[in-house]
């Protein structure tokens, strides 16, 4: 039956109206669905880590992983915040050993004071430490929104390594200009250029599937050994050149943003009742000038009441030798492994002298001793592979048919070398040897000779389940070849 013209018109009109409403909703729904699909694909590649950088070099992520892991099972007493100057120039294991407290370095390369502040905020939120040590090399003139290339990449790394989503969201507008929000959150967006520039990493990521963070071997407190040899003669000669200055602090005065976030860090520590100590690790004393001007600029901002161990202003020429510094005249000079040990013990001394009441002494706590078992500094016999400095000579072999040798290693120690032997603690009925004699091919200054080295039992170190035997200090260039015999003395 044919419809009445008025009904037809109504139907058409209704149809048109309803279609229009539906159309717009339909349009929005489709746009939404499409956006979900796109975000889903990116999230998927993020999840599988196809565009992740090589984890083994991502020390900032390792530090944060280790920090979260450590704070779950033990308190962290001292948190140290800074950039590469800190993690190469301070040895947290030795510092912990000297203080009898747990000290952790949460530093990332190239970090600014702003980034350091947000790292501090998250660290405090995870577990409130007793003390925060802030290294001052993060204080220079920068604008977080204007960072380019390497500095921006470092800031991305630091941001990506942190885990607390709310903290990250709060820090995002401060650390990045809006165009960098998405790269900050997504490895896919940040590293999409791998498709052209690093297909090896991309292939590796795809083949391996989702990369797990590297499992730490034992305790990891954020140390990173980068330099093991100090300033060489040729480099030292550069300092004799008239007018040569590698780093002029007077030209690197802290900018407004750095000052602002230093003040915020101080306020945060005050609010949370955390002791704050500023720390300046040195560069070689002939490397720089204008440091007083720089320091005065900071003092103008924070006053002179703030506890501050300044190893640059109060440079100790006997303790910090050319061996303590990276062999470079580039402005950004780091410390060596040797320098980091000196700095650690100087800091420990300062903290014991001025802040002893804040830091707990856990050296008698079994749980703490267990935590530090076999770590560098505590028993000296650190895992030699950790920093590539020590050399493993033997592992897990029987000695004199009664004893079990755990490790025999050659360790650089205080500008010399020491041979160390770790023995599995013998059963109670067995006699404890007082010393061992190792007969080996010893090479010193291109001469090799077979000779015995005596290792006496160390009264200072008592690793759990093991005994430690150490030699006298050997020539720093000593190398040990074939081990002929190991005899009980």
């Amino acid at each position: 039956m044919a419809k009445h013209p008025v009904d037809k018109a109504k139907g058409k009109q209704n149809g048109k109206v309803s279609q229009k409403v539906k159309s717009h909703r339909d349009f929005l729904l489709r746009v939404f669905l499409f956006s979900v699909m796109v975000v889903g694909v990116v999230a998927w590649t993020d999840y599988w880590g196809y565009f992740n950088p090589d984890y083994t070099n991502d020390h900032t992520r390792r530090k944060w992983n280790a920090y979260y892991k450590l704070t779950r099972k033990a308190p962290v007493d001292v948190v140290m915040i800074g950039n590469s100057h800190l993690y190469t120039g301070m040895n947290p294991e030795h510092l912990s050993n000297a203080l009898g407290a747990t000290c952790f370095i949460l530093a990332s390369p190239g970090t600014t004071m702003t980034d350091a502040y947000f790292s501090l905020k998250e660290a405090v939120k995870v577990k409130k430490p007793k003390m925060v040590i802030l290294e001052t090399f993060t204080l220079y003139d920068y604008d977080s929104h204007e960072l380019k290339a390497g500095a921006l990449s470092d800031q991305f790394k630091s941001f990506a390594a942190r885990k607390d989503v709310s903290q990250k969201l709060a820090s995002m507008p401060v650390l990045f200009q809006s165009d960098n929000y998405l790269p900050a959150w997504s490895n896919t967006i940040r590293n999409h250029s791998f498709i052209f520039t690093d297909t090896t990493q991309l292939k590796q990521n795809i083949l391996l599937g989702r990369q797990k963070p590297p499992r730490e071997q034992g305790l990891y407190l954020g140390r990173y050994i980068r330099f093991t040899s100090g300033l060489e003669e040729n480099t030292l000669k550069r300092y004799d050149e008239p007018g040569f200055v590698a780093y002029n602090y007077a030209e690197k005065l802290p900018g407004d943003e750095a000052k602002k976030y230093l003040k915020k860090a101080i306020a945060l520590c005050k609010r949370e009742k955390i002791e704050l100590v500023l720390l300046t690790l040195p560069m070689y004393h002939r490397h720089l000038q204008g440091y007083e001007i720089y320091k005065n600029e900071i003092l103008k901002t924070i006053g002179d009441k703030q506890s501050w161990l300044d190893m640059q202003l109060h440079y100790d020429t006997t303790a910090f030798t050319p061996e303590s510094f990276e062999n470079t005249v580039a402005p950004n000079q780091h410390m060596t492994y040797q320098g980091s040990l000196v700095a650690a013990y100087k800091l420990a001394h300062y903290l014991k002298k001025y802040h002893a009441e804040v830091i707990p002494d856990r050296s008698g706590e079994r749980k703490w001793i267990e935590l530090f078992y076999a770590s560098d500094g505590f028993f000296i016999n650190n895992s030699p592979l950790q920093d590539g400095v020590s050399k493993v000579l033997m592992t897990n072999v029987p000695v004199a048919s009664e004893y079990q040798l755990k490790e025999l290693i050659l360790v650089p120690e205080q500008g010399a070398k020491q041979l160390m032997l770790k023995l599995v603690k013998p059963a109670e009925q067995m006699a404890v040897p007082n010393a061992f004699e190792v007969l080996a091919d010893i090479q010193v200054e291109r001469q090799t000779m077979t000779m015995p080295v005596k290792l006496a039992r160390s009264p200072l170190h008592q690793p759990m389940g093991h005994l430690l035997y150490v030699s006298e200090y050997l020539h720093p260039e000593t190398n040990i070849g074939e081990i002929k015999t190991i005899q009980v003395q």
Partner: protein
Amino acid sequence: MLFNSFDFAVFLPLVYLLYWTLFQKHIKLRNLFLLTASYVFYGFWDWRFLSLILISSLMDYILAMKIYAAPLEQMRKRKTLLVLSLVLNLGFLGFFKYYNFFVESFIATFTLFGEDFSYSPMNIILPVGISFYTFQSLSYTLDVYFKKMEPTHKLINFLAFVSFFPQLVAGPIERAKKLLPQFDEVKQFDYQAARSGLLFILFGLFKKIMIADRLAVFINQTYGNIEEAKGIAMLTGVFFFAFQLYLDFSAYSDIAIGTARLFGFKLSTNFRRPYLSTSFSVFWKRWHITLSSWFQDYIYIPLGGNRKGMNRKIVNLLVVFFLSGLWHGASWNFVIWGLINGLFLILLDPLFKLEKPSGGMKRFFAAVLVFSGWTLSLVFFRAQTFGDAMLVFQNIGFGGVQALYEFGLNSRELSFALWLIVGMMVYEVIAEKWAETLQEKFYSVHYLLRWSVYLILTLSIIYLGAYGAGNDNSFIYFQF
């Protein structure tokens, strides 16, 4: 705010949703909202220069009404008012864009005659888009003066017309006659328009981020190190720039057109496959069409156009190309670039009989000739100084293939860039053949295929695009 920025990715959906949900039904409120959104859009770059747009717009709004109100017999008054509008508009443009250039040129001229002046250039910030919105606003007073249209009495509409954010900073330069009435229309959501708008935006982003910004890496390196860029590296840099400029600017126009469509506005086409042009005259009808037509309507034709003999036509053309060059930038290089293109049009079109080439091969060679001439002229457009441009010409060659990968793009990315250019040109040929029906054909295919195309384009931008730290992602025409 850049179209390819995170800010815009947040701004656009927000403005879109508010526009269609809260303001659609009330025209005045809607236009006020669009005006506010446009000012926010511009203010993201530098809010201080909003006053400049506002003053310029208010002046033209008032002057146009006064011009229209003055009886035709009061020619002197009408002319005075028009001159006032021209002086004020061009005064702003002249000061911000050309002050240093004119003073330096003036001093250079006198120095030739032995006079010695000491002058340090003023540190003047060039307001983004000033050349575009000044021309758009000027066209309004000129049209009212020539009685081509009546002035509007709706201030908000006029302010929104001058500052309409999709085309505010880099065009298309719209005529009041076309765009202004659209602010009076009741807007109904149009699914087809919105859908095609999004496709325009997506396609624009693809051209910009995938191709233009990738080519920019190589071009910035070669033009930034002219001494080192020799042989084929320099040639590639020169060749790439022709594509970068086209894809960068046409991408901006596409996104502008697409964005306007989302709000129910229609903007003019600004590019129509210019690199398929078989003559220079056709090229200028396809390249930056809204600017070319502006110069044609307000300079060339009032000067007499081609109605006063061949000599006058040549002079008129040279005047137009001189001004077009100057419009692009305050440098003699731009003027030279403009004049070269004027001479190409005057000399090469008749010499090679390019106007009407017959046969496929002839058309092909004509297109190659036009493209080559244009590409070479762009050396003056891109080089910082006349000396640099000369050095570029000296360095162009076919040797030094090994050095090709030392200018920011590795072999993989360079090959990819070349394939993208080839792909883009194939698309242009197809689009030329099917012209207006291409979109219809696209929308008639199965939706799964269409969605696949959308997804491929989007994911290509994300995974293969040239963006991130170290990439310059601004649009070239922002500087004009």
